[in-house]
């Protein structure tokens, strides 16, 4: 057992922390900041900040240097994730591209794709969106119906995607499209790289129960994409998507831990302000939540160890997702219990603003749905980890 990082890794942490201290505006540390900024403006702030971060040398931490990455260790990537969360750095403007698309392109993209996609993504010149889910294809992704029909050297795409993060600001979309007409299930699908700046592509924001719009719907009406803009080969879309999603496995949960642990402290502070932090039952309930958060931290160290040892993580990401999403959701149920009727209003007493925590409480209702619902994750754990019959 050795829970320390190497001296090089700790040096990296200390430099990164210094850079973040100097470069994240004080206003951003206010938990309410991003909700006060109009959506478009907020996105531009994030895009610009991320570009500066890249220029300072903090882009693609664990990517090979040949792709513009830092060539760092898995430990450095974990440190990076943790420090970003601790510093309240905004979410990446290009998160899905950086996490999923880029490593897939590195693995199976053509040379042209590697050149065209990775650099511009790192520099935030192109913002990537993911086009997987559809209204009729949520947990059952293979039921997707968006179609692409070959017309000369272009596909003509029709259909609809949903739950597309950043779609209002996106430039391109890596989308699963049924390119073989009449095909069913996971056959006949291709991953097409679609330009969103064309008349045939329309994004409409999707408002959530919190009132915010993290997601959007994307409609394709005779949208066009070059046949060469296909990742992983025509008809191989399902296989490509599975590889792409497997890159989630690097994510250990440390970033979630850092974020949720701060949420815990904010909840405690709010309860204290109303004299509700001394209720013995609520204290135990809070403590139970911390048990799950600490387990998430230990689990993150376990995952990082597995990655460093080069072990196959298998379906570990489903376990990580279940642990963080359920713990996060329950933490905010406890927020409701702690605050009682006073949690119903934004400012129950002077100098106490619950808006951010209330917003987050609603957000937690979504985390057991997207990215594979808890039900889908349990299926995966049962079948692939425990070997139970399908």
């Amino acid at each position, binding site marked *: 057992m050795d829970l320390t990082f190497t001296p090089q890794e700790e040096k990296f942490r200390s430099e990164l922390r210094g850079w973040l201290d100097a470069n994240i505006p004080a206003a951003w540390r206010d938990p309410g900041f991003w909700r006060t900024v109009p959506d478009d403006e907020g996105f531009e702030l994030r895009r610009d900040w991320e570009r500066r971060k890249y220029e300072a040398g903090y882009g693609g931490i664990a990517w090979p240097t040949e792709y513009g990455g830092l060539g760092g260790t898995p430990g450095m990537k974990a440190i990076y994730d943790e420090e970003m969360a601790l510093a309240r750095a905004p979410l990446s403007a290009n998160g899905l591209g950086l996490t999923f698309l880029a490593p897939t392109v590195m693995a199976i993209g053509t040379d042209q794709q590697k050149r065209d996609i990775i650099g511009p993504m790192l520099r935030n010149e192109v913002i990537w969106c993911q086009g997987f889910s559809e209204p009729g294809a*949520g947990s059952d992704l293979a*039921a997707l119906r968006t179609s692409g029909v070959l017309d000369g050297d272009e596909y003509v795409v029709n259909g609809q995607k949903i739950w597309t993060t950043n779609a209002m600001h996106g430039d391109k979309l890596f989308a699963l499209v049924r390119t073989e007409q009449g095909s069913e299930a996971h056959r006949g699908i291709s991953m097409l790289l679609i330009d969103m700046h064309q008349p045939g592509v329309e994004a409409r924001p999707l408002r959530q129960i919190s009132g915010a719009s993290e997601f959007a719907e994307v409609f394709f009406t005779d949208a066009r994409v070059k046949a060469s803009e296909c990742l992983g080969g025509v008809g191989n879309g399902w296989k490509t998507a599975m590889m792409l999603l497997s890159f989630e496995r690097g994510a250990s949960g440390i970033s979630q831990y850092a974020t949720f642990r701060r949420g815990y402290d904010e909840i405690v502070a709010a309860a204290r302000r109303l004299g509700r932090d001394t209720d013995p039952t609520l204290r135990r309930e809070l403590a139970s939540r911390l048990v799950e958060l600490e387990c998430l931290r230990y689990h993150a160290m376990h995952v990082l160890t597995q990655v460093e040892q080069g072990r196959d993580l298998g379906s570990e990401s489903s376990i990580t997702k279940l642990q963080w999403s359920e713990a996060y959701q329950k933490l905010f149920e406890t927020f409701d*219990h702690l605050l009682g009727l*006073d949690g119903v*209003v934004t400012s129950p007493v002077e100098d106490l603003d619950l808006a951010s925590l209330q917003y987050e409480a*609603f957000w937690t209702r979504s985390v057991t*749905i997207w990215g594979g619902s808890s039900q889908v994750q349990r299926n995966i754990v049962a079948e692939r980890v425990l070997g139970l019959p399908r």
Partner: protein
Amino acid sequence: MYFALTDEQRALAETARDYLADRFDLTAVRAVFEDTAGDGHPAELWKAFAEQGWLAVLVPEENDGIGLGLLDAQVLARAFGTGAVPGPWLPTVLAGEAVRLAGSPAQRAAVLGPLAAGELVATVALRAPGGSFDQSGVGVTADAGPGGARLTGTASPVEYAGVARTAVVAAKEPDGGIGLYLVDPASPSVTVTALDTYDGTTRLGGLVLDGATGERLPESNAAVLAELNRRGAVLTAADLVGIARAALTRTIEYDKTRVQFGRPVGGFQVIKHTLADLHVGVLMAEHAVLYAAHAVDAELPDAELAVAVAKAKAGDAAQRATAAMIQYHGGIGYTWEHEAHFFYKRAKRLVATFGDAGEHLDRIAALSIDA
């Protein structure tokens, strides 16, 4: 033994449900929900409430009311939960109950008639921030002043503080007792602040009293406050049960038709079992609210226990059912355009109204462990 609604009560429930479905469905609810600057008090709806006698249900016949019991009133509260209906019905009815229980004949005549006729929107202001729904949670004090009592302190959140013309305010009195006072929120020594809330099916406000004049309800005391809180808890529990049943029914209907992996998602065993457990929980909550309302009406010896059981169980059932409504609609239930959040948010608020689970469980513990 007859543990069920009477035919008349069932008819009342149907009338309310049908009226709301026809004239104030979820589209109308949405308009109020999204108009956060509005007063959340649709005039047409209120007029209908008065015409249907829904404001008169607990008002004695001698005060031009219908003089029914809490069991009848909970029929309406449940219908309002089922429809996520906005408007100051609950605070108005409870203010009426305060006057009926503790007012002088003159006060009863002055308040109850107009209230039953829909001419008086009223509310109750019974606790301060951080407080519980009992004597200890009262945040206003009453001092004898020239010409009557002067009230000072805070009550929050108060339902429909912004539209109520009369507020029944609970106050601690110099002798250590509790009194209930009729206060005019528009008087200069009262500040009404609109409070932002996520539940657009209501409107909440804070009352700050700075030496405000209050007209005491002469029979009021701590026991009447407790009685008022009990009645508030029963009607809130009924609303929650209405929410819970609506959330469950809507989820079942959706899951019967939503197809994933080639079959209705309601056919997956995990979802079936979750919905079955929810049904049992909602059914038990329905029983518990019926029993509690009757126990209060009939002054059964276990009425206090029954009210606490009903509120705790109804809150639990509603929270589970509305959370499941979001989860088992998949992503669509998480969108603003879907109705799931009306039910989820209303339940979340009401769970803590008139005593959260902790308060009621503490009461149950005191009654069953220390007795």
